[in-house]
């Protein structure tokens, strides 16, 4: 058993998790709820083992580095943090329906990591710029933030769907969507998830700046990745201010959660492929 097999299995377990949560949502099969959670936890543990094993394998290859250094590894780690943050939310808010809108993100990330031909899965050694103690701190903090924003976007979508059906007041939909938490609750969890993500994104940007300073002598150079991370930070700063001081909520915050996540995806993925800059090593 090697790490790529474990990580490959994870793709399918997250697909299955997604299906379980969807079944709970559509058919309201309460009995499956605990099963879905247990299954997701097992899938998460398999992935954890896979990532850990990949770390170990890098030592066996004489390279010895955290598995967080190229696009493939970061996408896998992204999926891992999404599930981690989701499980925390599920435990904290005792609602499993969020899984329908959160777990698919992890599955999509894993599917992309596993099936895209553009990503190298090989364990390659680190170029000099990446040989830093700040690597783990920077990547881990950023991805906790990204994962929270992914789930906030999922919650935003959930809010908009429920809101549309409630304004239409069509009876057919309301039976299906009746199992969704009340709008007020979704709104509240969306907000709290964004706040959580905002704190981690801030720490991620700061650790990145400190790293850049120790490698190049400049903590901020307006390179596209840095700039986009700042744009993302602005989007969430706007969202939080609009809520705290102007009382925004509901649909507008739901949309902002989605817009924010689009900015996250561009920061994370778009910049590497569409723009050039210091983070270009992440492109393969």
């Amino acid at each position: 058993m090697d790490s790529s097999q474990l990580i490959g299995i994870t793709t399918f377990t997250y697909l299955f998790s997604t299906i379980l949560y969807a079944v709970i949502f559509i058919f309201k099969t309460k009995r499956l709820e605990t099963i879905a959670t247990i299954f997701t936890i097992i899938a998460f543990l398999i992935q954890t083992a896979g990532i850990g094993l990949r770390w170990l394998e890098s030592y066996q290859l004489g390279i010895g580095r955290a598995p967080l250094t190229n696009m493939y590894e970061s996408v896998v780690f992204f999926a891992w943090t999404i599930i981690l943050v989701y499980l925390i939310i599920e435990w904290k808010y005792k609602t499993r329906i969020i899984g329908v809108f959160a777990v698919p993100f992890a599955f999509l990330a894993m599917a992309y990591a596993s099936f895209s031909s553009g990503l190298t899965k090989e364990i390659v050694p680190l170029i000099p710029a990446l040989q830093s103690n700040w690597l783990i701190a920077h990547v881990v903090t950023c991805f906790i933030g990204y994962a929270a924003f992914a789930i906030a976007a999922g919650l935003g979508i959930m809010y908009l769907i429920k809101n549309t059906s409630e304004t239409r007041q069509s009876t057919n939909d309301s039976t299906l969507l009746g199992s969704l938490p009340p709008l007020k609750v979704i709104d509240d969890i969306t907000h709290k998830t964004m706040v959580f993500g905002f704190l981690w994104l801030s720490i991620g940007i700061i650790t990145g700046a400190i790293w850049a300073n120790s490698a190049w002598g400049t903590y901020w150079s307006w390179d596209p990745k840095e700039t986009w991370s700042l744009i993302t930070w602005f989007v969430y700063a706007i969202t939080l201010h609009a809520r705290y001081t102007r009382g925004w909520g509901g649909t507008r915050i739901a949309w902002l959660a989605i817009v924010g996540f689009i900015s996250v995806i561009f920061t994370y993925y778009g910049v590497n492929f569409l723009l050039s800059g210091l983070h270009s090593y992440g492109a393969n």
Partner: protein
Amino acid sequence: MKNNNPIWDFFASVKLALFTLFILSITSIIGTVIPQKESAQWYIDKYGDSTANLFQILSFTPDMYGSAWFLFLLGLLCLNLIVCSLERFPGVWRQIKADNLNIPVNRLEKMTPQHQWHSPIKPESVASSLKQALNANGWKAEERKVDDGILLFAQQGAITRTGVYIVHTSILIIFAGALIGSFLGFKGSVMLPETRTTDKIYAFDTQAPIDLGFEVRCDSFNMEFYANGMPKFYRSQLAILENGKVIKEKAIMVNDPLTYKGITFYQSSYQAYQEFLITIVNKKTGVSESAIIPYQQQQNMQESGIRLGIINAEGQGQSVIRMKIWFTDDNGEPSVFWLDNGEQATVERSTSNYTISAKQMYATGLQVAKDPGVWVVYAGCFLMIIGLIVAFFMSHRRIWLYIREDTDNMSSILLTGNANKNKADFEKKMQLLAQQINTI
């Protein structure tokens, strides 16, 4: 600070903050799409004359983030932060320092969550027991006699109301650090050949020489590659000299710079020369001789009269991996042999044996920065994280107990309170507290 000056109100408004952040987000995108800090010709080649010209007029190129209008937006954000915080902070401070016992009882009666119970003892005794119970639960209570009863008040985390202002201040500190760096610091680079010394580096933007105030020497540069050809490390052995004396020595690598007198040297690039450092040791006499010789040129060593040259080389890119050396001491046929870069070989001649080593010459590319503002920036960053945690995850919780004489020395007790954040959590805590004290 409170006044009705419309200009003040404009700069104090959150609307302006939202607007500025929005404009900053949108305009920041431009500089990520149009590459920055390229030459004028580069832009003309890429976008054509008129577009390149337009970009320059709009300051999109060559350095949008340093342009007047972008700095103006950042300045506007700062001014907004300052005025907005000055406007709001006094009110928040009044809330922190408020006399919470000075509150009409009918307002308490309307507050939620609320717990009520009765006690068979006198209000005074109930009040002192409750006070003790609250203290035991971490609530330091104050007491005051009011209309027809006794009021108790306790609060936690009042100071957390300042969280948002800690964050605002931290942003201003970060900007201040950036300004200190840009006025009192510099950023430049230097290409320093091995064995050479410099007391100057060259500014990034203007290429103007900057005096270091001391000298830096590159003793050697080397690099290694992984088996797959990826670079493993670049390393420069640097020495700092003052008045010709070595003060400090360090082998720097990427992510591991050398700092002296506030100036930091970062490993950034390298350049390979078509020159080689040759050292010859006569094994019989022990005499050693070194020279730097260009590629494919014959060199006469002055003392020994040996003539040699590098007649061929193999390498990867600019880097020589092995070289072919032609060597003669004019006793017999010349020796011709291959030697790996940086290695040594023994040449057997009729008169004596020689050890010869050869190494390709490199220059190390150093980035040099002096930034006295960086610790201010870091302090601001640290404060920001503290502020965000306080602002988002800590709340100001207040509880009131109103104890009133019922009938016949009986007491009726009202417990209420509020929190400015995490209300659900607070309600649970209130529930627990009520369960603990409602037997008093």
